[in-house]
């Protein structure tokens, strides 16, 4: 059971970063974003696009990508592209919907349509087959109680550092305060001189950048697939709900818990020979949490009905 702990932490960091992004967006805009998974996949696909050496069929470039940038640079560029994509979504789609007073449920359905649309764009024009980042293979090593490759350990540390910095920014900067103000009441914050449109735009950008980062992590740990975001989306919802939707710290902890639960449940006695069903365990836990403590571990009661 313990040997799965390392895998659990790695799945946990992916879900955690993605959950923080989803939770931030939900907190400020009240949008349950089903297209979140597609932004995650965009991070991975763009990194592949910027970094891949010859002989990959990525985007419209037939057969090879001529870029072949350094991997770290590619990651940064990919995260920036994700941020721009988030801004594009907000400006071209969600801002007009908000101004047109389209209700939450309609927007939720729109994000589902968007998710299906973008996902199949990836399938058709980006990467129809499973691909790996151009990184050399590494051997697993033992750190304390868990086994993982040095690169994955770096991913874990980088993810935690990014989330801590993000949490710090959200708590202590003017921008973070403004975000939380818009989250609590868009009208009241407008009255106090906060430009809520700008804040929501910045929220979309930062949420999308975090999501893109989560996608890069997922691709480093596993691989790049066109539907990688959708495969993990429900686990991200589970992490967000477990921690308390709308709370960043909760989403971070909830994401790790879900990741560890999913991987450790493989070692449970009744799960023997049923490893395919491991995601069902996490989803069942999410449903139970919603029933008995719908505000999650760290959420506040007023957020639920």
């Amino acid at each position, binding site marked *: 059971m313990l040997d799965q702990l390392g895998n659990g932490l790695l799945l946990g960091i992916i879900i955690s970063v993605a959950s923080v992004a989803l939770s931030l967006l939900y907190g400020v805009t009240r949008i*349950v974003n089903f297209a979140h998974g597609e932004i995650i996949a965009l991070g991975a696909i763009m990194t592949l696009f910027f970094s891949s050496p010859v002989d990959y069929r990525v985007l419209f470039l037939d057969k090879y990508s001529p870029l072949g940038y350094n991997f770290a640079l590619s990651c940064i560029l990919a995260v920036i592209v994700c941020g721009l994509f988030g801004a594009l979504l907000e400006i071209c789609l969600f801002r007009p*919907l908000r101004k047109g007073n*389209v*209700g*939450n*449920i*309609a927007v*939720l*359905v*729109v994000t*589902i*349509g*968007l*998710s*299906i*649309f*973008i*996902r*199949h*764009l990836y*399938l*058709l024009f980006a990467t*129809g087959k499973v691909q790996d980042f151009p990184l050399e293979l590494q051997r697993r090593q033992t750190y304390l109680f868990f086994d993982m490759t040095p690169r994955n350990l770096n991913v874990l540390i980088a993810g935690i550092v990014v989330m801590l910095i993000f949490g710090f920014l959200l708590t202590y900067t003017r921008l973070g305060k403004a975000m939380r103000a818009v989250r609590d009441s868009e009208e009241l914050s407008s009255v106090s001189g906060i430009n809520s449109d700008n804040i929501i735009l910045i929220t979309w950008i930062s949420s999308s950048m975090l999501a893109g980062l989560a996608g890069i992590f997922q691709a480093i740990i596993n691989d790049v697939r066109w539907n990688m975001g959708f495969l993990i989306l*429900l686990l991200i*919802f*589970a992490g967000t*709900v477990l921690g308390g939707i709308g709370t960043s710290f909760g989403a971070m902890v909830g994401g790790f818990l879900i990741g560890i639960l999913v991987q450790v449940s493989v070692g449970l006695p009744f799960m023997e020979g*049923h490893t*395919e*069903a491991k*995601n*069902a365990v996490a*989803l*069942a836990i*999410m*449903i139970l949490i*919603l*029933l008995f403590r*719908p505000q999650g571990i760290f959420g506040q009661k007023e957020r*639920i*009905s």
Partner: protein
Amino acid sequence: MKISNKFLFAVFLTGFSIYLVFALNPEGASRILLNLLTFAGIYGLSAIGLNVHFGWTGLLNFGHASFMGVGAYVTLILMPHAAGREGEITSTGLPFIVALIIGILSAALFGLLLGLPAIRLRGDYLAIVTIAAAEIFRLLVRDLESITGGVYGIINYTENLQQYRPNFINNFSESLGFSPSQAWVCLVAWVSILFTVLFLKRLNNSPWGRALRAVREDEDAVRAMGKNAVWLKLQSFMLGAGIAGLSGVLLAFNYGSLETTVFVPLLTFYVWAIMILGGVGTITGPIFGSIIFWVIISETDRLAFILFENANGQQLAGVRFLLVGLLIMALMIFRPSGLLGKKEELLLDVK
């Protein structure tokens, strides 16, 4: 009954899309049309069930595929079939109609089971819970290989329905070059739609139907009138799930072999697209929506061949889903009431 312009427009559009099938396919149009109408009937039925959930009661159900799946699996397992890697044969079983009724009741029961806890949740949470429950169902079915055949699925069950195929279907199919078994499934699907629509029309005008719509409009008011809003929601969940169960069984008979991959979330989204296209909250809307939707779906294969020279199966499916996604988005943004729906009857905001 007064026939509205909207209704005429829907009929016209449906007729036009059927005409398009003939215009675009000089050869074999009738065979394509049969295939398309069979799918349209089955998915339309499912969308009618979803409309009871979302359109009538305002329940945001994104796990519709699981209700279809429960109906299909329970019915098939109760009848003679073969399942699993080795194709293990179960030669005894209930007659089709008994198994079907148990299947539909199981789907309704699953609706109740899922509804009981989920009903207390607010709209967007309900969406997440239902989609998660549907995934749990699918993962479990895939895992319980000894009963459901797991990834290998269930086969050799179509005879259970086909043995009742009347003779006139055979003669009719022969003269038109149809597959008689599909023609029979198609007929059964559309007869089911007819009865479901008649049944729902009656319900809709009954005090029960009015109470249901009142739940959607204002739950507190329903409570104040002494009605049990939670029980009403649960009844709606069961009714819609039962209808979905029936459509799931028909889907299984149309495919000829049943695998868990049928019941992925995308199936639910197909049904959502049909419901929105036809008109949320209407009874007959999904029928028109379904036919138009399937004409779009089956004729856009050409688009795939324009985009890619030798489009493979993955690319064909990709282009289809691309359009489904676009359709859902565009409808929800520009015409959320679809063909027949009334804008004031739409539930678009979280209560």
